[in-house]
């Protein structure tokens, strides 16, 4: 039972990641390939504050959101000048740089040794150490993310984001400052990824750079694309399916030396087939232009 709940916690964290990336990629049409960097910086900020300064995970979560948001601000600048493949490559590069920092700045991050013993969340003095309790906490944040991003995309503000996705030149001709919206979207999306990182760090209690690789960014992107660009429900479904599906392999009794690459092979094949057969994903309508 705990195993099932554990999978649900992990899936929920990916739901937050997928929805926040969807805001950038699916709703605004900016191909960002470094989402794991925001996720990672949130996790590290929160964990380091707790380990070094004894800060409460709640403070860490807010701080993680802010640092991730600031990183989003920085990474949004390439998005003002670059398009398409080139933007994808620049954000991917930014992701690799952040990963390198986590791995090489040993004095602070302990590098590949990782950070063990990260304390868990408490609520009104009660530690949330059961998986049940943690699931409720994470679901509350899923709710918050859905609410905030949902409101954004369904407002006039969100309408401008979709217009940017459709046609930047047309949006400018409507008197809208496209750059402002791009920066905002990167900051908001990054901040929520930071929250996800903090939730992950305090749940697993150990983090190391290997959780925030480029492959992780691609996996999150696959969830978004699979569920459907520009569909929040799609991101939920996409994240849950892509977390649960590989777990089934384990049920079939496969050793992890087979299950692990097989899972990745499924991801890869899925990505290729989606692009050829259904680029708008399961629940999306929008197709990359």
């Amino acid at each position, binding site marked *: 039972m705990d195993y099932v709940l554990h999978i649900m916690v992990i899936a929920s964290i990916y739901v937050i990641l997928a929805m926040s990336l969807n805001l950038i990629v699916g709703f605004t049409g900016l191909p960002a390939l470094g989402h794991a960097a925001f996720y990672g910086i949130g996790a590290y900020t929160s964990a380091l504050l707790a380990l070094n300064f004894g800060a409460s995970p709640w403070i860490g979560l807010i701080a993680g959101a802010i640092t991730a948001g600031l990183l989003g601000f920085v990474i949004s600048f390439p998005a003002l000048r670059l398009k398409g493949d080139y933007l994808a490559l620049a954000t991917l590069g930014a992701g690799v740089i952040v990963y390198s920092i986590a791995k090489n700045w040993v004095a602070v991050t302990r590098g590949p040794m990782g950070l063990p013993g990260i304390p868990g969340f408490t609520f009104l003095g009660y530690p949330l150490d059961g998986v049940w309790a943690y699931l409720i906490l994470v679901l509350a944040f899923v709710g918050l993310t859905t609410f*905030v991003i949902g*409101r*954004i995309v369904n*407002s*006039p*503000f*969100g*309408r*401008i984001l*979709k*217009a940017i996705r*459709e*046609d930047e*030149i*047309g*949006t*400018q*001709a*409507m*008197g*809208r*400052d*496209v750059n402002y919206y791009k920066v*905002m979207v990167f900051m908001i999306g990054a901040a929520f990824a930071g929250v996800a990182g903090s939730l992950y760090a305090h749940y697993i209690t150990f983090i190391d750079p290997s959780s925030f690789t480029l492959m992780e960014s691609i996996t999150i992107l696959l969830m978004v694309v699979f569920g459907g660009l520009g569909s929040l429900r799609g991101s939920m479904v996409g994240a849950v399916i892509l977390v649960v599906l590989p777990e089934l392999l384990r049920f079939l009794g496969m050793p992890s030396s087979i299950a692990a690459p097989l899972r990745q092979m499924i991801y890869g094949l899925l990505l290729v087939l989606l692009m050829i057969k259904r680029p708008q994903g399961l629940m999306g*309508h*929008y*197709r990359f232009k």
Partner: protein
Amino acid sequence: MSTILQISNLSKSFDGIQALNRVSLDLPRGKISAVIGPNGAGKTTLFNVLTGFLTPDEGEVSLGGKIIEDMRPHKLALLGIGRTFQNVRLFAQMTVLDNLLLAMKNPKGVSLWAALARPQIMQAEEHANRARGLELLELFRLADKAGELAENLSSGQSKLVEFARLLALNTDILLLDEPMAGLYPEMIETLKKTMQALITQGKTILFVEHNINVVMDISDHIVVLNHGQKIAEGPPQEIRKDEKVIEAYLGKRQDASA
């Protein structure tokens, strides 16, 4: 006759071609002016410079007597220079009404704060804008298409929606790039009447058009470009007889040179 937009010595070259070569012209306030000229004359380049999508190599533009300093596209739109595009730029995967709403000013509802915390204020404004959007669509008998995705419209309908969207933007100056291309004759009549009606409401129109009958019919003033230069300017009846214009379009008269 007062001038609303003054263009002086505008030049722009790219890909080794001088697309605009020291073009100057005064756009009369409250009139319909047309830019004509053969392929590659520089008409669309002129529009793109005037709306900030291209930066001129030299020259300047003044609006109502004041030189425009910040020529970024969205600033120009806010200053009151709106445009349509030759190849119709609707937001294809959005509804027709959303296309119009995007053009409308919504000082209260467009911010992030309004989206998150003040939905009711946003809603009130949204409501008024929707009503106005439907009104504009009705002008072109397209109100029943309000909920349709723009990509599902016919080319003629797209053109009209783009025009309605420009009206929603509500700028003083309207630059129309080939508004009649791809329209049926009835639609052309509707659009001509709408353009004339806008003039009576105090708007100024500058348009590029290949349908020469429409140009001759409704323009107060015609500017002719060829190879990036202004070769003639004046009322329709003069332009039609101008030998330089005829030559630009049809080529040199063979017997005359012989």
